[in-house]
């Protein structure tokens, strides 16, 4: 064709349909939510670190003060020490446990898996309180410490290991269950013994999982506040320092500085974990065959014994807390009573705080799931609007890198600012819901994305060709298919909203006291039995939610098995 005859090469202008506008509108609204719920508060926090009490810019003065005050800078060393030690211990323990669950033929695997997940249902304060009942001044196991005190690094490490164990175990379990069984067959057929196979096949295939577990453990421990708050004693760590500066001394600027220091390891660990996860993907091919262990009586017996030991410790922690909450006066008067459950006589807001927690957790689960799933759907399935979707992808990852304490403090600075039009939210239940949804946004979002990725990308194209608007297909097809993931997300949000302390501890008011905070306050007031009782209420509620989730999931699987085969 002659060049002259060719029409001018104008770029085709896409007509943006009303559907596209709806998609962009919703996506924009969710992005705006994240902007208000994470970006702006974080900015308020960061800028506070460079100001004095009157709001004047002071450069690095606060940081200089922090690092030249031995009492404060010592916390950095303390935090790093206990986090490193706890990480090594918990990753080793969880690794063997996961090895037993995936590579042995021992009995009761699902029971052991269930037991290992119990600590997820607890606020981190509870295992620490239990430790005091066991190893404290009147503990029945104190002799095992050989004269050392439970208050301090020993107690923190023990508490953190128990509290973090299920999180680490889950990560290692996933990476172990992805191992290719054929590599083991190849190794055996080439004459390698079990030891050589372990070092040449097992370890290399899960090394990313292990490293990732290590980072997650380290971050969770260094940012955890419940355990050191209860058993830390005089041993200061960063997380308790933030609390002390803000609640104890009302020094918000120094609180901001400490929580920014706390942000550093969290962000590093987060970044490292993302890089590792990207590498992990490439290991397993679609053609891999799952590994099936062969029975070996001796090995299986050793593994059973090990899991039983770990299981006893976890069940023991829970049982001690439960028992202590049900007796008159531990350890002197062991006659049973429900007096400790009469929270009206104690600090912390009484039974109201429990019902507030249930209310807050329910709202978090319902609203959070709707917002997060819809957002994930639009990020994954909408067309065009690349800039908006890229921005969204960045925004949704941010909450993961921000420790709860830093988030809570950031909310004080942002929402309590007199000039903020959203100021009315401060000290209300909605702000607790917003904060909690934001705090646990990333994991929920990733769960939704994983589920959505398994859905045929052409559903939207087909429905457009049939002139059916996308929201109808979303409601009639996408949501029903994703119900299992939606249940997972709401369960995750509910349980975490019930147990979390770190972010909400700065945000509650006398009217919106929460159960987990009540545990903290009753423990502070020396009413450990009542603190344990409230902790048990949280465990029972979270456990009930999990049970309900299991029943729903199973019922759903039965009802939909006609179309969910393969």
């Amino acid at each position, binding site marked *: *064709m002659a060049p002259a005859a*060719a*029409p001018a*090469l*104008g*770029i*085709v*202008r*896409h*007509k*943006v*349909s009303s*559907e*596209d506008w709806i998609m962009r509108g919703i996506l924009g609204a969710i992005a705006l939510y994240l902007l208000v719920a994470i970006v702006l508060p974080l900015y308020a926090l960061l800028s506070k670190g460079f100001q004095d009490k009157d709001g004047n810019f002071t450069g690095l003065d606060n940081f200089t003060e922090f690092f030249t005050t031995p009492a404060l800078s010592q916390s950095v060393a303390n935090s790093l020490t206990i986090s490193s030690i706890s990480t090594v211990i918990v990753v080793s323990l969880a690794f063997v446990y996961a090895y037993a669950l995936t590579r042995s033929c021992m009995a009761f695997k699902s029971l052991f898996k269930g037991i290992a997940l119990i600590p997820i249902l607890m606020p981190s304060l509870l295992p620490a309180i239990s430790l005091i009942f066991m190893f404290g001044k009147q503990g029945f196991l104190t002799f095992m410490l050989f004269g050392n005190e439970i208050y301090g690094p020993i107690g923190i490490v023990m508490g953190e290991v128990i509290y973090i164990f299920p999180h680490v175990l889950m990560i290692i379990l996933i990476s172990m269950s992805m191992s290719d069984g054929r590599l083991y067959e190849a190794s055996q057929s080439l004459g390698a013994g079990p030891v050589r196979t372990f070092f040449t096949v097992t370890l290399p295939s899960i090394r990313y999982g292990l490293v990732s577990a290590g980072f997650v453990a380290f971050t969770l421990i260094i940012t955890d506040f419940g355990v050191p708050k209860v058993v830390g004693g005089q041993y200061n760590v960063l997380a308790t320092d933030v609390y002390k500066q803000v609640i104890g001394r009302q020094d918000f600027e120094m609180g901001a500085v400490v929580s920014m220091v706390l942000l550093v390891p969290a962000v590093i660990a987060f970044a490292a974990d993302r890089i590792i996860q990207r590498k992990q993907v490439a290991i397993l091919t679609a053609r891999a065959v799952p590994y099936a262990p062969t029975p070996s009586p001796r090995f299986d017996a050793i593994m059973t014994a090990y899991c039983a030991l770990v299981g006893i410790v976890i069940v023991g922690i829970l049982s001690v807390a439960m028992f202590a909450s049900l007796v008159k006066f531990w350890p002197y008067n062991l006659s049973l009573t429900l007096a400790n459950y009469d929270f009206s006589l104690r600090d912390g807001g009484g039974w109201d705080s429990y019902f507030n927690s249930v209310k807050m957790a329910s709202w978090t689960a319902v609203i959070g799931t709707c917002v997060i799933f819809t957002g994930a759907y639009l990020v994954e399935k909408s*067309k065009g609007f690349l800039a908006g979707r890229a921005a969204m992808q960045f925004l949704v990852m941010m909450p993961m890198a921000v420790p709860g304490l830093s988030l809570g403090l950031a909310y004080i600075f942002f929402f309590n600012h007199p000039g903020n039009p959203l100021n009315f939210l401060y000290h209300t239940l909605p702000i607790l819901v917003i904060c909690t949804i934001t705090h646990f946004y990333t994991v929920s979002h990733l769960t939704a994305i994983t589920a959505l990725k398994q859905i*045929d990308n*052409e*559903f939207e*194209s*087909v*429905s*457009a*060709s*049939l*002139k*059916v*608007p996308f929201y*109808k*297909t979303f409601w*009639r*097809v996408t949501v*029903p*298919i994703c119900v299992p993931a939606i249940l997972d997300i709401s369960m995750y949000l509910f349980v975490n909203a019930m147990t979390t302390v770190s972010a909400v501890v700065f945000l509650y008011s006398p009217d919106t006291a929460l159960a987990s905070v009540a545990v903290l306050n009753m423990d502070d007031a020396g009413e450990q039995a009542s603190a344990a009782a409230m902790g048990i209420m949280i465990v029972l509620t979270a456990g009930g939610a999990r049970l309900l989730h299991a029943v729903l999931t199973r019922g759903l699987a039965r009802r*939909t098995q*006609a*179309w*969910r*085969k*393969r």
Partner: protein
Amino acid sequence: MTGKDAYLKVENLTKMFGDFTALEDISLEVFEGEFVCFLGPSGCGKTTLLRAIAGLDIQTHGRVEQAGKDISGLPPLERDFGIVFQSYALFPNLTVHQNVAYGLVSRKTSKPEIDARVAELLESVGLVDQEDKYPAQLSGGQQQRVALSRALATKPGLLLLDEPLSALDAKVRIRLRHEIKALQHQLGVTTIMVTHDQEEALTMADRIVVINEGVIEQVGTPQDIYSRPVNPFVADFIGTMNFLSGVAGNQAQVRLGDIELTTNNCPDGIQKDDPITVCIRPEDIATRGVTPDTENAVPTVIETLEFLGSFYRASLAVQDAGETTIRADFSINLVRDLDIKEGQEFTVALPSDHIRVYGEIFVHADDLI
């Protein structure tokens, strides 16, 4: 072309993905009721072209016109087409009935009308008794038919099929080819199908559009494309072809080494002694009653005889043309009657009508492996 107006017109369409040009200056017309196949190797841009026509991935430059209306920049929702994907994209949580009725429900059609339409469609694809099953309970071929019914339910003006058969077993695939073609013929719906399977294109299409590396190589009927490929790429991509390098001689003459051949298909603009490629299909090589005096007779030695069931494919060494080998199809009868064996001398003829000459050197893809 013909007197009819085109139903679908694509004009100077270009699609860029960043710096990569997936389609370059594509112009094309599809007539009402026609069955057109986009045929090409994977990654050639044929699916990109289909998606541009559907509005799923709108082109960077160029116009698309359907039924006289410019639809270049319209979103898919505002276009008039039905589509079947390779994966079928059936909604797994809806029954066959609900899937087929999906597009009807939102059109304010009454329930009895919907039921009647669904029944009619399922009748025509032979799935009446499967209405209440879920897609996962059907075989691949049945799922394919459901997807087709769903796409046709709203009576679209244009049916788009994106590799609709490639996820199926060979036998089912052949049966469905006929079913789809028959259904299309009966409904008279203008249809575009994307495929990389030449046999599929040859058996189903009214016209084939051969695409390679983002440009159209040839448009024509299956017979056209097969017997008169315009360039070595098309010749190679469709069917089996011998590629022999030679030089142009006087007028209608070409030379392969010491052998002189006459041809009726020498393109214009080729000068004497220009390097050329001579092509002939194995089944076009004459084997019976060939004497040294026959036109274009070539003495050869049979190197190998490969048994392919209904015929033999022979590799023939042509000493007089350097180390060239020619593939020729020998019927079972021929081999039996003449007691043909490997290593035997055998003279064949390359009929001048069937020789095609291209003025470029072509390296056969298999030779590069």
